[in-house]
């Protein structure tokens, strides 16, 4: 049969009574910036009627996940708040105390309090708490330009999401995270003559189907499998893709660096590497080879608890396949040795000649900074080591002295300059101790940081924020537990259907396409993040009309479309023009190290101090980290290391060892006792299709799919504990506890448990102390802060420890009552 389609239709067209707006979506609701193509059907009354995937999209071709299919239920959800609200400070935590106010009142309150508090304590007393996966978060440069505080605070311990991989890539390659090449930017896609389908794809610590991690369209893996690519999965659990893999390595959580070193060792010792590439483009090969030699495959097999023959097999398969690619995921960030594992993965890619070749791993182009005013743009080649100038502009509006006040800059300057903000764990220290100075004002911007998505030990964050913060405002679509707990003013933001926007896929790294979000409907008085930034910038300029820095943001971006044009589109396009394209591809070049496209000076090579791939990293060395990869047992591991880091001559974590010791002793348990009391390895962060981080829990059609927070456990472990499938249980350790419903899964490794991500319960009481039940299933309370590497990165979100105790009570949600409360759209 032949079917009708909308291929070739303009960005806006009529279909019967509906006006259809084609759009490339990116948040809210939050997601990673894939910018999937959607068609928004708007009825005669201007109301969003339904959503379909847009078959015109060059990546997704009309396919769409359940979260966007349910967009209407998010836009018109009865619990969404679409007017500005205020609440007296003494009523914090009282869900019934919010009062509607005007935008002017709300903005005046924010600016008056900002003036009062910064006059007392300096601009650095304001922290901007940002989350992830929201458009507003990629505009952090704008936020910093307005308030000029260095304390941009992404509160996840060790920034254990993407940044450790980004920084490892920056150190070793002088480039951003190199993505598995899925032909996204090529005009002909998979069929483009330039492209080659990879013979082999290794998915390592990454299950990209449910979450589209970092902007990678997860189902492109399926597309490539259909075109003949074989899979290897490296993951402790058997995920669904593992059942379609030729080999899977079910390693023990947190041991990735040991495996990665062994794989490099085999590739080098069996002479499976590309001598020409090493000779021409690598630095420190001999030292690297010597270091990985200590990790024999036999040793790694013991550490990782996997068959040694499988390690050999994967190393040889990967080296023989041409091309082959590796997608390395979040597990690398949520591990204190993750950057070392990443160092090895990058080395594997280079050693086998799979870097920046079709079907291998592609390196991001330099972002063109011509219209931006950061130091990086102005400074020429020597200072130009910042490939993300579009996101660092606000940081460089501050003087070096002002930036130097960022919390954690004294310990972790590389981290703070890389992310243009404060080090997460040090922010908690300042909130708790008021040292080196008090943090009195907060902007909770697109972050629900006390839900189990982001901060470790959120109970501590909650207490510290409530105590330390004198004034806080929040920007979001819903009153989240975090906003309920600490905010005095709420500013409602629009969903992706209600504003114009530009999304850069992969957060701007390996940005293969640029997408335009087109406004289709208006709801209440909500404004988009960027529009709110413009209003705040306008007020700041009015307050200090003679201070050019205070006026900078307003003068540059009087309207939010100016930001879209000058920043997101780099001054090279006008939104009014490109919105009609909805999505357009960027040119893709391969082997850019040969053509000078990786360096602003146009010279061949890489943007590292030596101009080569640094297998021995001079930047790690300069920043106090071991310049070569190492493996060391995770802090909360069920094994006591046979040798200390000193015995192995590894520079493990020199900066915070005393502090870390203090944290251990505070809990008063020896490693032996910990292993005895908390024998399970706890992996947090299990993703579901029906939600993004802590979002979507109030959407009835999605909640019905995953009504309760689940803990996956091996049936043999469950039997030993007397825990039945579907029974609730409590996981606990010396840091905290949380309740989950057990799902017995033979795919979970014995001795491991895996907890669902991001749960809170909009149907439960919103007021303190419940805060929508945010403490009920908060697995992050079992993950300690401050277990980072020497650069302040990485944290044990996937290798904490716990015990599991069966419960008699059930905490199942009543879906009928839920549907009654949240299913009737307004």
């Amino acid at each position, binding site marked *: *049969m*032949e*079917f*009708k389609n909308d291929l070739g239709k303009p960005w806006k067209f009529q279909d019967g009574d509906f006006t259809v707006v084609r759009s490339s979506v990116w948040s809210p609701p939050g997601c990673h910036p894939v910018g999937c193509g959607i068609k928004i059907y708007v009825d005669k009354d201007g109301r969003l009627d*339904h*959503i*379909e*995937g847009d*078959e015109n999209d060059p990546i997704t*071709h*009309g*396919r*769409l*996940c*359940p979260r966007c*299919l*349910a967009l*209407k*239920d998010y836009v018109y959800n009865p619990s969404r708040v679409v007017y500005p609200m205020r609440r007296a400070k003494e009523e914090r935590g009282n869900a019934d105390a919010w009062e509607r106010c005007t935008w002017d009142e709300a903005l005046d309150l924010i600016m008056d309090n900002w003036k009062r508090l910064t006059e007392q304590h300096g601009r650095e007393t304001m922290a901007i708490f940002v989350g992830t996966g929201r458009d507003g978060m990629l505009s952090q440069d704008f936020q910093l330009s307005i308030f000029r505080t260095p304390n941009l605070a992404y509160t996840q311990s060790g920034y254990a999401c993407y940044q450790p991989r980004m920084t490892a890539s920056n150190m070793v390659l002088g480039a951003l995270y190199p993505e598995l090449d899925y032909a996204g930017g090529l005009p002909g896609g998979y069929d483009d003559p330039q492209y080659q389908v990879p013979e082999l794809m290794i998915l390592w610590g990454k299950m990209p*189907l*449910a979450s589209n991690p970092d902007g990678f369209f997860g*189902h492109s893996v*399926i*597309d490539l*499998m*259909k075109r003949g690519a074989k899979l290897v999965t490296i993951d402790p659990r*058997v995920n*669904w893709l*593992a*059942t*379609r*893999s*030729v*080999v*899977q390595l079910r390693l023990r959580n947190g041991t990735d660096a040991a495996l990665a070193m062994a794989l490099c060792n085999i590739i080098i010792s069996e002479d499976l590497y590309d001598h020409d590439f090493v000779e021409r483009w690598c630095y420190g090969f001999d030292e690297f080879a010597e270091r990985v030699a200590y990790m024999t495959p036999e040793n790694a097999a013991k550490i990782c608890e996997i068959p040694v023959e499988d390690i050999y097999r994967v190393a040889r398969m990967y080296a023989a396949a041409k091309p082959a690619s590796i997608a390395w995921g979040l597990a690398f960030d949520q591990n204190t040795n993750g950057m070392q594992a990443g160092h090895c993965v990058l080395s594997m890619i280079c050693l086998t000649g799979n870097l920046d070749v079709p079907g291998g791993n592609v390196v991001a182009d330099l972002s063109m900074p011509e219209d931006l005013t950061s130091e990086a743009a102005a400074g020429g080649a020597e200072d130009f080591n910042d490939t993300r100038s579009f996101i660092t502009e606000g940081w460089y509006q501050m003087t070096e002295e002002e930036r130097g006040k960022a919390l954690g800059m004294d310990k972790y300057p590389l981290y703070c300059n890389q992310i243009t903000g404060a080090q997460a764990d040090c922010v908690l220290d300042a909130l708790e101790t008021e040292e080196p100075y008090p943090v009195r004002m907060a902007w909770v911007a697109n972050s629900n940081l006390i839900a189990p998505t982001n901060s470790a030990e959120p109970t501590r964050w909650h207490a510290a924020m409530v105590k330390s913060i004198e004034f806080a405002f929040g920007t979001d679509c819903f009153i989240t537990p975090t906003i309920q707990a600490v905010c005095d003013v709420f500013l409602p933001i629009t969903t992706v259907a209600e504003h114009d926007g530009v999304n850069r896929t992969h957060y701007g790294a390996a940005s293969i396409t640029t997408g335009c979000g087109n406004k289709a409907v208006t709801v209440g008085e909500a404004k988009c993040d960027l529009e709110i930034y413009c209003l705040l910038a306008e007020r700041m300029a009015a307050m200090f009309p003679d201070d050019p820095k205070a006026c900078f943001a307003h003068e540059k971006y009087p309207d939010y479309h100016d930001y879209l044009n000058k920043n997101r589109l780099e001054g090279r396009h006008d939104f009014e023009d490109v919105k009609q394209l909805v999505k357009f591809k960027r040119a893709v070049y391969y082997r850019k190290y040969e053509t000078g496209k990786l360096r602003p000076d146009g010279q061949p090579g890489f943007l590292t101090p030596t101009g080569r791939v640094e297998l021995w990293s001079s930047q790690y060395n300069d920043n106090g980290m071991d310049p070569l990869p190492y493996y060391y047992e995770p802090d909360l591991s069920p094994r006591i290391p046979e040798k200390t880091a000193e015995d192995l001559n590894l520079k493990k974590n020199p900066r915070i060892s005393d502090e870390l010791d203090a944290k251990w002793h505070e809990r008063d348990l020896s490693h032996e006792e910990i292993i005895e009391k908390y024998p399970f390895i706890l992996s947090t962060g299990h993703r579901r*299709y*029906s939600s993004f981080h802590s979002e979507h829990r109030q959407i*009835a*059609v*999605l909640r*019905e*799919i995953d009504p309760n927070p689940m803990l996956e456990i091996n049936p043999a472990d469950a039997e030993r504990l007397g825990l039945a499938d579907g029974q609730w249980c409590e996981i606990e350790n010396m840091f905290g506890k949380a309740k989950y419903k057990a799902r017995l*899964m*033979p*795919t979970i490794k014995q001795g491991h448990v895996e907890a669902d991500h991001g749960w809170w319960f909009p149907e439960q009481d919103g007021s303190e102390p419940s805060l929508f039940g945010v403490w009920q299933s908060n697995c992050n309370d079992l993950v300690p802060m401050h277990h980072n590497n020497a650069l302040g990165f990485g944290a044990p979100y996937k290798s904490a420890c716990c015990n599991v105790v069966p419960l008699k009570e059930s905490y199942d949600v009543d*879906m*009928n009552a*839920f*549907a009654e409360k949240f*299913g009737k759209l307004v």
Partner: protein
Amino acid sequence: MPKYALLIDYEYCTGCQSCEVACKEEHNFPVGKWGIRVLDEGPWQKDDAKDEGSCFNWNKIPVPTDLCDLCASRVEDGREPVCVHNCLGDCMRFGTVEEMAAELARKPKQVLWAPTD
């Protein structure tokens, strides 16, 4: 006699449940009612010498319910059912029973549903 059928390639159904949600939105089915559901068959361990991978059986198979009308009004308008249109794994096809039966013969691990007359 059924005229139309849904063909599912369950080798590539990832269990994303887009079909379920697209269907509910299209038909306004309330909580507790569905036009299609994804059967989660597994995971359980098998002992298969030929299987080089995980040795786990785990297939996700969309199953139309009694409420499925194969999006009759859309089909009348010349469009595919919403489950097929939005499928993330691109593993669902819709057509006449004859057409789909011919497709079925092309590869294993497929299933053909003819839920309605």
